[in-house]
């Protein structure tokens, strides 16, 4: 994890939270999907064996 600090106008705090939140959520979704794909592959290999 990396700490990043940005200076933004007070009126845009909500927008910045939303923007960062979306990136983090998309990143988490990608990880979840990749984990699911790996599980599916493992299951397939297990079935083959």
């Amino acid at each position: 994890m990396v700490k990043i600090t940005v200076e933004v106008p007070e009126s845009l705090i909500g927008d910045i939270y939303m923007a960062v939140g979306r990136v983090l959520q998309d990143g988490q979704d990608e990880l979840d999907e990749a984990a699911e794909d790996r599980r599916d592959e493992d299951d397939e290999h297990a079935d083959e064996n």
Partner: protein
Amino acid sequence: MSTQTRTDLVQLTFEVPDRLVGEVYFAIGLALKRAQQESATTDSEPELHDWGTESFDGEQVDMAWRKFSPRAQAVFSLLMENPGVAMTADEIAVKIGLANGRHALAGVVAWPSRQCAEMGLVAPFRFDAPTASGETGSYWMDPETARLFIGARDRALASQADLQQQS
């Protein structure tokens, strides 16, 4: 995440995974640029109005509710069942079960805000920015907006029940 205020500028600190640093900076830059462009064209754009202030909001609310994702509907259900009550982002995230807490919540409500803006309306929630370092922002819904959206949710549920009975 932490905040530090200096005149009208606020320092926000985010803890992000290494692999997403570039994307986070890009998203922040985009948000700042969009805000700059919006402020430049404010005069020519119609102002967004609050829910419940126009007679046709009752029809718009059904359309808005249908557009919201299931997660957004869950967040707004929590807020509208507690009208006027401010809840911290972390509190809502825990109650809804969002993995990334406050950041995930901000992402969940981002699209509804845009969808409402496209209809000329403000987002169905109010956001109070954090006032001190280490605090999170709070979300709440005013009673009139809550009344409208509870009606929309009830109509959507009734409509789903009808469809299930028919099939």
